[in-house]
């Protein structure tokens, strides 16, 4: 209900700004990532790296998780902290070949903090 209300209020603004707000992680993946990384995240050999192992491997360490949100495609994506956290968690569930049961899911708070951190 809250989401529907916010959606109604923001609908006009979103149309003007072309914002990604309100889309599901799957649609955000299509709009922000899929054009290059392809439908299953495998990318294209020699041109676009696969996310199917790299995402989980980067997510294992503190430095990797910070590095991840500063990768060009992610840093420039028009996504809120909430939407990016949901998108990364969806990708780890859906477009992934690595074990992830031990991984801590991303949260909006974590994404915000890591976005504010400068890379060493």
């Amino acid at each position, binding site marked *: 209900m809250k989401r529907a209300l916010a959606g109604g209020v923001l609908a006009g603004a979103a149309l003007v700004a*072309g914002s990604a707000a309100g*889309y599901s992680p*799957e*649609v955000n993946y*299509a*709009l*922000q990532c*899929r*054009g*290059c990384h*392809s*439908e299953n995240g495998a990318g*294209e*050999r*020699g*041109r*676009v790296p696969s996310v199917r192992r790299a995402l989980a491997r980067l997510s294992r360490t503190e430095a990797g998780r910070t590095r991840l949100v500063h990768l*060009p*495609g992610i840093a*420039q*994506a*028009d996504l809120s902290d909430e939407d990016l956290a949901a998108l990364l968690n969806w990708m780890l569930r859906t477009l992934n070949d690595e074990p992830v049961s031990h991984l801590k899911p991303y949260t909006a708070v974590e994404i915000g903090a890591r976005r504010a951190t400068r890379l060493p």
Partner: protein
Amino acid sequence: MRRLRRGSTMSGLDGWTETLTRSLASRTSRRSVLGGLVGWLLGATALPLLPVVRGQAAEAQGQAAEAQGQAKEAVNDPTACAYWRYCAIDGYLCACCGGSQTTCPPGTSMSPITWIGTCLNPADGVRYVVSYNDCCGKSSCGRCYCNRNEDDTPLFQPGRANDYNWCSGDSQANIPYHCSTSRIVGSAE
């Protein structure tokens, strides 16, 4: 002239012209004048061969093709820029080039790297995710140029910009852009 209107502006102009002509004649030879003239003529004929001028000509051709495409105002006509799926297209319509809105014309191949956006289908009011895969392998089609660019961003925001040549890259190196398709890959809702 000088005798008739001595001291007037006209005679001053005459005198100035005479001085200029005589000094020019005493300083330059016929050969040097001819040489310069030939240089100018050759330069002028070579100018249209420069890539800048050719680019302008191609742009003019593109604008003519754009007018041709926009003349057909039909939301459900795949050969018209107004077709609802083309809301973010920037290129020649494959449907006008021997292919369709989802398939490449013979002799071209579809680039797997693509720009993706959303378009509202007025028929059911649903917003769909649309992938604008380019067809590569032959020179520009030149028919039905459309440039609608909904949700496109400027090149300094590269993540959502569509002004790239999506035929470039490793496996498609140096393969020219021919036309663009628009493939529905899902619902945005």
